[in-house]
């Protein structure tokens, strides 16, 4: 084990990896700070570049860029009242209210310091939980995997979306896309329309670039909201008073980090969901809930920690089971497959040095976040002035070339375009996108384990419940399916007895 750890250190502190980390850090800070460019988009744009890198530097760029982007999304939220990434949206109004009161330094500093703290907490959980879970997962058969994938998809639909029906729809669409091509247990070309490009299936990476980059550009192009005005010209010392905040709100920091890691680990829910839930929780348990919304730092401390801890949390199911915890890790899993680092419990036994390297990268990224984040805050005035009408067209060109580069095929560029338009249309009509991503990523795995199990059990469905662990996972999954129905009936009954509570 210690040999593997030393090897991991050697891989991470190699010049190529360190350069990748620094480059990705600046890239992530920039992308996060520009409104309209998200952390997921940062990863999607990085994929074509990581394609040409060794596995560890490739992972380094993705880990670093996302950690930085989730922090720097706070900056425009605080200074312009526009969240840089959706993960900062939960407390943008609060942060901007603080800026109005002349406390921009404290809001930005709290975002930075507690992002790093939350990120390190999530990393600690990742380091402790992932190997232990991998140990358990080694004993999984196709029955357990089938239920686990189904549980993950169920979470994505029911827990992370307030519109289960629309979530189911996008999930099914994602699963259907995963059916295209030869990649099924029978090796029969499905839905290929005689096209040779489609026999290999719809490329996951071009699809993700479309859904996360092209759809954002479309949204920018048709956006009619007036340009925001920068209210602060100069930002002072942001670290002053942060220690006092940490002493004042230790419980909030811990609660935000725990909730964030847990939400991150749930398939389909990522940093943005973690921030919303944790901000709501902070307000609920606060001693001074009336101050929330008026420029009170407590919620920023808690949800700022939560969104960064979610990033590491999302890697737990991704590394152990190949089930992405959020849309970022959905892309990461695609990259891991391209690098022949197929996620799964065997990754922990055959190449432990790679896993240790991932842990180290997370620690490193969250530590260098503080000095580099300070630089970013200092430069915020200039970053926020970057003209988006120049940036967006360049991103489009980059997406075209990057998508083309993966298979040297313009077919993939078409996939990107179609995926981008569909993602835009679905989101404009309030269909959640996360279940679709999970469906595409997990469709093959779900079908494979389903068919294998059916063949093993000779078509008898009872076998799906015969192993204790499989039965337990099955029960949890099925309870989740019926929970919304039961809750709806309950709330209807209570509505009948109470005279309209929402009057």
């Amino acid at each position, binding site marked *: 084990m210690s040999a593997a750890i030393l090897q991991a250190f050697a891989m991470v502190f190699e010049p190529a990896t360190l350069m990748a980390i620094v480059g990705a850090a600046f890239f992530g800070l920039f992308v996060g700070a520009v409104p309209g460019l998200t952390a997921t988009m940062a990863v999607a744009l990085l994929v*074509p570049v990581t394609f040409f890198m060794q596995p560890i530097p490739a992972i380094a760029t993705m880990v670093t860029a996302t950690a930085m982007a989730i922090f720097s999304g706070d900056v425009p939220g605080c200074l312009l009242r526009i969240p840089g990434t959706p993960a900062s949206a939960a407390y943008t109004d609060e942060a901007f209210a603080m800026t109005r009161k002349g406390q921009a330094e404290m809001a930005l500093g709290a975002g930075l310091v507690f992002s790093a703290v939350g990120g390190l907490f999530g990393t600690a959980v990742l380091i402790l939980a992932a190997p232990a879970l991998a140990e358990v997962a080694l004993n999984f058969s196709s029955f357990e995997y089938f239920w686990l994938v189904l549980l993950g998809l169920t979470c994505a639909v029911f827990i992370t979306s307030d519109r289960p*029906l629309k979530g189911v729809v996008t999930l099914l669409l994602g699963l*259907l896309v995963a059916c295209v091509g030869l990649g099924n247990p029978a090796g029969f070309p499905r839905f290929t329309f005689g096209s040779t490009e489609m026999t290999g299936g719809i490329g996951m990476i071009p699809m993700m670039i479309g859904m996360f980059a092209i759809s954002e*550009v479309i949204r920018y192009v048709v956006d*009619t909201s007036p340009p925001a005005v920068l209210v602060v010209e100069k930002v002072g010392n942001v670290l002053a008073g942060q220690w006092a905040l940490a002493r004042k709100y230790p419980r909030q920091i811990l609660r935000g980090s725990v909730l964030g890691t847990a939400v991150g680990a749930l398939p389909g829910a990522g940093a943005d969901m973690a921030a919303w839930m944790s901000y709501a929780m902070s307000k609920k348990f606060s001693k001074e809930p009336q101050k929330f919304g008026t420029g009170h730092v407590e919620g920023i401390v808690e949800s700022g920690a939560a969104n960064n801890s979610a990033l590491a949390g999302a890697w737990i199911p991704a590394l152990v089971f190949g089930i992405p915890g959020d849309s970022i890790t959905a892309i990461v899993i695609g990259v891991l497959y391209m690098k022949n680092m197929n996620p799964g419990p065997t990754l922990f036994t055959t190449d432990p040095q790679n896993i240790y390297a991932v842990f180290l990268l997370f620690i490193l990224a969250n530590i260098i976040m503080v000095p580099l984040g300070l630089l970013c805050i200092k430069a915020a005035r200039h970053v926020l002035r970057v003209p988006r*009408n120049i940036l967006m067209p360049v991103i489009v060109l980059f997406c075209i070339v990057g998508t083309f580069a993966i298979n040297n095929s313009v077919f993939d*560029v078409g996939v990107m375009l179609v995926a981008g338009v569909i993602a835009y249309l679905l989101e404009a009509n309030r269909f959640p996108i996360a279940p679709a991503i999970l469906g595409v990523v997990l469709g093959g795995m779900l079908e494979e384990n389903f068919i294998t199990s059916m063949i093993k059990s*000779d078509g008898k469905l009872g076998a799906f419940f015969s192993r204790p662990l499989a039965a337990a996972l099955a029960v949890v999954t099925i309870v989740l399916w019926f929970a919304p129905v039961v809750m709806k009936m309950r709330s209807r009954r209570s509505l009948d007895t109470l005279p309209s509570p929402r009057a």
Partner: protein
Amino acid sequence: MKLNDAVFGLLLTALGAWVLFAVQGFPRIPGQPVGPALFPGLIACGLCVCGVLLVAKGWRERDGGPWVAFDDWVRSPRRVLALAVLLGAIVLYIAAAEVVGFLPLAVLTLLALFLVLGVPAARAVLIAVVAALVIHFAFYKLLRVPLPWGVLKTYAW
């Protein structure tokens, strides 16, 4: 563009029905209880059920509202044009990259988008050329992606 849920429901039901029809032609695997048709078939059934539910939901919530509603940007010719240029540029690239080549198309795409998004003309030309050359250098020279030369083939560097 906002569609009533019922419109989506109809589209999804049609998709589900088409998939159900298509999987009838898939082969059976001798000696196995399940074949390649089962999984997409189940998904298609799910799509049909959800589609019908959405139709019902959309019908209940229609309230005399339009079946298809457009957002504010449709009334802004500039934004409609920008969207058309964006989508058209990608389609053009797919159709013509091999013949015309990367560099001319890249400059054209950038220039058209810059202009329609309101970048001053002189600056737009300059940035379009520089950005196209930088991306070409990064991907063609550094990452060795075979970007097509097209009409510039004789001048390839």
